[in-house]
């Protein structure tokens, strides 16, 4: 299991590939891997976005990610999972979040991956502030984004 809040840009596909090859996933044991990558768009609510600052609640956010990971692992009998979430200053086209889950069959992988993402959007203690052309603004609740 890899759960990390990171303040540097990352390549999600390399992250998955490296983890899958080197981190204890037994070859031949998994039949399904579902992943989600959220990326910063350069456009939001009609405005051009130049940059975004993501903050979190150190201590609480890590604790939340561990809990949702454990819950998804047990509820969907997942074999393993990755959650990587950016914080700090993010440029358009940079990944914000990566969730990858491995399981024997596909339904568990899809459901587990989506449940983690819904939790991240609705409950994990992250906040976003966008830098537009001529102002900054806090992004309101991410539930429908």
């Amino acid at each position, binding site marked *: 299991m890899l759960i990390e809040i990171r303040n540097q840009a990352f390549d999600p596909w390399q992250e998955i590939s490296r983890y899958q090859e080197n981190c204890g996933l037994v070859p031949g044991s998994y039949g399904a891997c579902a992943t989600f990558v*959220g990326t910063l768009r350069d456009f939001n609510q009609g405005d051009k976005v130049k940059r975004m600052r993501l*903050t979190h*609640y150190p201590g609480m956010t890590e604790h*939340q990610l561990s809990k949702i990971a454990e819950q998804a692992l047990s509820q969907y009998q997942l074999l393993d999972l990755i959650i990587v*979430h950016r914080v700090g200053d993010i440029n358009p086209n940079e990944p914000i979040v990566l969730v990858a889950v491995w399981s024997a069959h596909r339904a568990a992988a899809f459901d587990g991956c989506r449940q983690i*993402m819904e939790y991240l959007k609705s409950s994990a*203690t*992250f*906040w976003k502030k966008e830098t537009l052309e001529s102002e900054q603004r806090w992004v309101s*609740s991410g539930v429908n984004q």
Partner: protein
Amino acid sequence: MSITVRFFASLAEELGFDQKTLDRKTVAHKSPLTIEEVWREVADRPPPENLLCALNHEYADFKQHLKDGDEVAFFPPVNGG
């Protein structure tokens, strides 16, 4: 009795601070102190609509009671992922 109080995101910007410590001397109430009362002690305004709070890194109810050493946090709706 000492309570650490933290504020995040737009709320910290509006209040002008992101952390306060409440100790027994500054607390006017008889115990037990609730999260709701902490807000009244540290902020000079009514709680904003949609205000969320956490107690020791778990989401909490404003009516929850506090004990010495607790960490209370106030923040606006979250937005991860």
